[in-house]
């Protein structure tokens, strides 16, 4: 049986009309989040309607992209064959200053140094081919942490 993963490119995000400002922000080195103009809730991932009150009046705001590590795992067995080159994967859920949770990975840190609650800052990583940008995180530079 042929291996369906063989020669398959890594899956990359494809923006929708709703999410496009988020990805455009990453390309420009900025993290942009939606905020509900009715109830004030910060929103991630981008949506058409607020997941708190279903209002469709949502505004885009540029934020610091800084946050803390909410939780993580170091995956020694790849979560999918397409990510075998990244093992051990340092998978994380990051809580941004605005309170939203963002799934991502940690870079520039050794597995043993990862601690829940550690301050993090964004890393804007161009995807292969340079067409898009992924949002990864690394430990915040000292002196800049909250």
């Amino acid at each position: 049986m042929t291996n369906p993963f063989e020669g398959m490119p890594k899956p990359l995000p494809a923006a929708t009309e709703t999410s496009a400002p988020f990805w455009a922000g990453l390309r420009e080195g900025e993290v942009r989040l939606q905020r509900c103009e009715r109830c004030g809730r910060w929103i991630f991932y981008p949506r058409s309607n607020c997941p708190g009150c279903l209002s469709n009046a949502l505004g885009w705001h540029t934020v610091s992209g800084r946050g803390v590590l909410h939780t993580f795992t170091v995956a020694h067995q790849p979560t999918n064959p397409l990510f075998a080159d990244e093992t051990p994967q340092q998978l994380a859920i990051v809580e941004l200053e605005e309170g939203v949770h963002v799934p991502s990975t940690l870079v520039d840190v050794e597995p043993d140094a990862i601690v829940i609650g550690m301050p993090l800052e964004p890393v804007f990583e161009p995807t292969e081919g340079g067409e898009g940008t992924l949002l990864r995180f690394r430990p915040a530079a000292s002196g800049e942490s909250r």
Partner: protein
Amino acid sequence: MGLRGEAAIVGVADWKPERKFSGRPAPMLEQWAELARLALEDAGIAADEVDGLVTPMISESSGFVPATVAEYLGLEVNLAEKVDLGGANAVGMVWRAASAIELGLCTVVLCAIPARPTPRDPRPGRPFDDRYIYGASSNSHGSPQAEFEIPYGHLAQNAGYSMIAQRYRSVYGYDERAMAKIAVDQRTNACAHPDAVFHGQPITADDVLASRMIADPLHLLEIVMPVAGGHALVVARTDRSSAPAHRPVVVAGCGERLTVKSPANARDLLETPVGVASELAFSMAGASRDEIDVACVYDCYSITALLTLEDAGFCKKGQGLDFVRDHDLTWEGDFPMNTHGGQLSYGQAGGAGGMSQVNEAVHQLRHEAGARQVQNCETAYVSGTGGVMSEQSALILRGG
């Protein structure tokens, strides 16, 4: 309000789980039909009495699944449901069937989850199904998983459950030997069940902790063993005219809860939906936690069982590891849990894994569990969990 105890599980079928499938791959429709035959035979009910069915997704159809199943089996039904709750399917099927029966829509409902290998499509050039590549995450355009998780490698179940366990460790503290004991006690149970895949292979906490670290902090032996298999059950009105073939197992209470698909979007990773689902089930049944003679707790991972013990109210939040340390979870212990070995040691037949838990409760309440029989077993708790603590459901079952 709630179920009145007019519906009962009256027949079950369990295909012996196999790590290496010994049979011939067959379409899920064929598996469905064969499991239905076995469950009806166990119930002593003829096929033409069936007037309801509940099915999961099947490989052969992306839509119109209940009609396809009814047609293949030659059933004429008044209840035709497809459930899409992952590992919570089995529990979800039982209460949907019981509810429809109590509403008077139908009298005999078949529920089956086939999970043996299916044949390869011999036609050339057929692309692989995205489900084969991405599993429980959707890579379809516009899917939040495709856009915000898959590109980062946030895929499949191991990582999600491990991130929950890490959070638990950070908030409540962690005793890896107590976590390991969940797997150890269930393995003891599997050693009393001849059909369990790990029958005859007892383990110790040291074995669990020495097994390969898959995603920190979860070791290989804290993660289910995938097997080929399948389960089915029949839910029927308790006042049917013909005498039941076995002690009926009454569906006394049920509950269900879901909030998010992915752990990153959970409001609190450690307050799992099974709490609300279980409270609904206990209060509907008028049952207390102390009444439970056997707990069939969905256990795709050790952490799943731990959080369910807490959120279902068997112990306080954050005290699950103390509870596990203080209780003997084996079939002869003071808190018999997953007496068939659980999915960790009986085996997880894909989406059918959760039905092994429902059916084990039935075997225990019928007092036919052989070497692993819990004495005076009258009331059972069953939970189901889909995704990463996403879709969750609960049942209280009573011997009729």
